[in-house]
Each structure stands twice: as structure tokens, then as C-alpha cells.
């Protein structure tokens, strides 16, 4: 029977939740990295026991952690204690330096700051880690201030794709409330040179040449709260999801609006339909039904909690526009938590499991595509991210 491993990043550490395929009884391990913010953890599709975690702190900066045994033990790649002076190893697993070299990089460009002035790029943290689909030692990192890095040595060293930051539209990118973060990385399973990324608040971008050059893919997005609502860049994209069986179809939760693209992001149209509010952060796609999508509507940009105090996931079985609320097992009164952008995930069992975490510390699981839910845990620190591994 298959097993499930749910990787949960929180404001104060990481947790690993494990179950068999019934998804009824769960073993909870953690906290790992207690006291540190874990923005994201994710396992390698090529080796499910290889996990990566982004550990950060306002005091001590960024640390990358790696596990080779499914999360039982962790190490900082290249950071093992040394017996004494000399023999200094690289120890650069937490070194994220923008590539400004004349040979391979771009000058240290500027972006728009909150007050409208230009501001140089400054590294703050890793928001998202996306392991390669084929190589356990290759992993991509989306960082704040927005840029894409890659490691090909298991997280020991990191190198920027400077063509994204240096694309030329950088002076029009600006930070959202959470900072100017590259939070979404989607690797195209059918084309190893195609990568989709999203930045708050710049928008979505795509490379078709393995990361050397990038183009904005924001046509069709309308953001009335920016000076030019249909601008090429400047949109606050919150998250994008794809079903791997249909990589040219993308679903987006924007700051406001749920959007859909059928041409790999070249154009988008709105599919918010009958949602009670189309503001939100999280969005995901059913593992086996590419027209079934999930969102967690949030009241507004000023009130980051569910409308009417009722925590509801909405499901569309028609690729958008027609949505049904899923409420069984979720609090339907006095609930004022948020579901953050990386805090929803699906497993690949049949039937598909749907998971999400809240800023109130609950992690909910559904073993029947969202029809019914129960909390795996109720009282973790605020949940920042949820990922699921379906193990043999």
C-alpha cells in the first residue's frame, strides 16, 4: 500500500506528517529546526527521500537544509563541522549572491520600492524550493528580492539565472506586502527547457531555453489597483498551478481574480465565476482530473480571512467559472485564519487527496478529492507551506 508524507513549513519549525494510503491515522514528527521560519520544504520526484528545506530567520538569515532519509535526519550541505582550522570546505549552501559578473551575469539592477523610488536588489530569503524532476541533486530556489537560483550539487552551492532579474522590466517590479518574492516555480514535465515562475508584484514569466532568457506572460491580467491595469509587468500574482499531464494549461490565483491560460501563459482569461470572493493565495489542480481545481477564497486584500468566518475550499470541476463550496469538516463559524500561497497540495492516490494548512496552525486532509476533511493536526505554529509526497 502506498504511503503519504506531508511536509509542513511553519513560522517556528518544520513538521513531517506520515500515513498509509487510507489517510486516517497520522504520525507527526517535529518540530525540526525549532524556532526558525520554514518557508518551504519539498521532496525530489527523482528520489523521494531527498528533501530540501528553506530555513530562515530575521536574525541569522538564510540556511538550506537537506535530508537524504525522508526527513529523519538533516544536514546543511557542505556545512559539516570540521575538526579544526584548515581544510576549509566550501560551506556556501546558504550563500545566495546575485550574479553581477561581466562574463555570466547582469549588473545589479534596481526595482521599484514601496515609495516609488528605485532600490537595488537585496537578498533576504528563499521562499520556494523546486527539486528537478529527474536529478535529486538539482534544485531551484525562488528568492526575495525576486530572482531564480539553481544548485546542481545538492544545495551545496547556488547560482543565479541573471537573465530573469536583468530582463529589462525590473525597474517596474515592486514588492507586495510580503516582500518582492519569487514564490512559484513550475517545471514543465514535457519540456526540460521550459520553466514558469511568478513574482509578487511583477507577474508571471516563462523561459523556453532553460533559464537564459525570459518573457513576461501576463496578457489578459487586469489589476485596477496599479497605474496601468493591463501592464506587461507589475501584477501581484499569488500562485500558479498546473496538472503535469497538461502542461500548457495553467491556473492562477492573482491578488484578485482566478485566471486560466490554455496556451502556456501567453494569454489569460478570468474564471472566477460564482466564487464569493476571488481574492486568495492558494490554488491547486486535482492529480487525475485536470479540469478540477481548488482555491481557498479569502475575504479581501485588507482582511486576510475567510468570508463570513466560514472556512471553505471551493472546487470547480469545469476548469473554472462554476464553483462549489466544500465545507464538511471545516469550521463554519468564527474562523479567521488565512491559507497562504504554498499551503495547499494534492497527493496522487486514487482518489486524490487534498491538503491545506492555515495560519491558525491546522493542517486539513481530505482523502476524497475534497468532499470531506479532517484535521491531521490542529495547533501547529502558523503554517507557511504544505507539500505532499505519494510514496510507493
Amino acid at each position, binding site marked *: 500500500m502506498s504511503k503519504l508524507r506531508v511536509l509542513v513549513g511553519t513560522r517556528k519549525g518544520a513538521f513531517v506528517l506520515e500515513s498509509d494510503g487510507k489517510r486516517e491515522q497520522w504520525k507527526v514528527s517535529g518540530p525540526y*529546526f*525549532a*524556532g*526558525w521560519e520554514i518557508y518551504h520544504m519539498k521532496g525530489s520526484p527523482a528520489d523521494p527521500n531527498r528533501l530540501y528545506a528553506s530555513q530562515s*530567520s*530575521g*536574525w*541569522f*538569515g*538564510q*540556511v538550506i537544509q537537506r535530508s537524504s532519509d525522508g526527513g529523519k535526519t538533516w544536514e*546543511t550541505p*557542505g*556545512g*559539516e*563541522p*570540521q*575538526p*579544526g*582550522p*584548515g581544510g*576549509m*570546505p*566550501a*560551506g*556556501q*549552501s*546558504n*550563500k545566495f*549572491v546575485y550574479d553581477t559578473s561581466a562574463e555570466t551575469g547582469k549588473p545589479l539592477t534596481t526595482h521599484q520600492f514601496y515609495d516609488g523610488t528605485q532600490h537595488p536588489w537585496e537578498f533576504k530569503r528563499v521562499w520556494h524550493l523546486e527539486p528537478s524532476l529527474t536529478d535529486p541533486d538539482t534544485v531551484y530556489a525562488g528568492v526575495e528580492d525576486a530572482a531564480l537560483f539553481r544548485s546542481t550539487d545538492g544545495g551545496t552551492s547556488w547560482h543565479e539565472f541573471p537573465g530573469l532579474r536583468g530582463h529589462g522590466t525590473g525597474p517596474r517590479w515592486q514588492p507586495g506586502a510580503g516582500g518582492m518574492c519569487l514564490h512559484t516555480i513550475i517545471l514543465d514535465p514535457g519540456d526540460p527547457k521550459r520553466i514558469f515562475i511568478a513574482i509578487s508584484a511583477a507577474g508571471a514569466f516563462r523561459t523556453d531555453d532553460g533559464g537564459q532568457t525570459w518573457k513576461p506572460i501576463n496578457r489578459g491580467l487586469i489589476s485596477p489597483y496599479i497605474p496601468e491595469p493591463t501592464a506587461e509587468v507589475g501584477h501581484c500574482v499569488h500562485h500558479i498551478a498546473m496538472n503535469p499531464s497538461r502542461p500548457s494549461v495553467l491556473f492562477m490565483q492573482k491578488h484578485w481574480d482566478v485566471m486560466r491560460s490554455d496556451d502556456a501563459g501567453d494569454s489569460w482569461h478570468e474564471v472566477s465565476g460564482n466564487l464569493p470572493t476571488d481574492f486568495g493565495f492558494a490554488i491547486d489542480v486535482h492529480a487525475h482530473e485536470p479540469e478540477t481545481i481548488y482555491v481557498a477564497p479569502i475575504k479581501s486584500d485588507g482582511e486576510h480571512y475567510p468570508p463570513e468566518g466560514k472556512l471553505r475550499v471551493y472546487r470547480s470541476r469545469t476548469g473554472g467559472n462554476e464553483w462549489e463550496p466544500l465545507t464538511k469538516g471545516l469550521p463554519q463559524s468564527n474562523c479567521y485564519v488565512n491559507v497562504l500561497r504554498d499551503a495547499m497540495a494534492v497527493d496522487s492516490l486514487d482518489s486524490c487527496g487534498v491538503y491545506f494548512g492555515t495560519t491558525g496552525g491546522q493542517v486539513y486532509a481530505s482523502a476524497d478529492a475534497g468532499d470531506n476533511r479532517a484535521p491531521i493536526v490542529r495547533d501547529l505554529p502558523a503554517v507557511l507551506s504544505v507539500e505532499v509526497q505519494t510514496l510507493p
Partner: protein
Amino acid sequence: MIRVELPAHLRTLAQVSREINLDVEGPVTQRSVLDALEARYPMLRGTIRDHVTQQRRPFLRFFACEEDLSHESPDAPLPDSVASGAEPLLIIGAIAGG
């Protein structure tokens, strides 16, 4: 032998107890002590001072002998009692909630 005390989160990261003993060759300064510390515990690189600029991270301070040494030159000699091992160099995180 130089004694260094780390804040709790860095002790966890480096998997060490409260106080670390280091051998430092040459003049005992903030820079030479941190160089020795990071050579022995590479996972601490970037957590106390910036990888590139080598500037102290803004929410950390250095104290010894009841003195704030945070704003001293990184190449200034540390107090004799730190150099002799009588007193530790304290690396302290700002008390800023969280």
C-alpha cells in the same frame, strides 16, 4: 584558547553546546575569531556576518567583559581577557520578539 558563546538558534544549527573553544592564530580580533569559528563550523557562514560584505548582521551584537564591541573595527584587538580565554566573546541576538 578563545571562548565564544553563541545564541541558542546558532547553537542548534551548529550542533554545539553553549560555549565553543577555538584556537586562533595571530592577533585575536573579531575577524580572526569569526574566521576560525566559520572554518570549524561552515554552516555558520552567512548567519553572523554577510557572505560578501563581511558586515555584522544587523540583529546581532558582540559583547565581552561587559562591553559592547559591536561597533569596534573587526580588526581591532579584542580585550586581553578574551585573548587569554579568561572571558568569552558573546554573540547575542537582539531581543526583538518573535
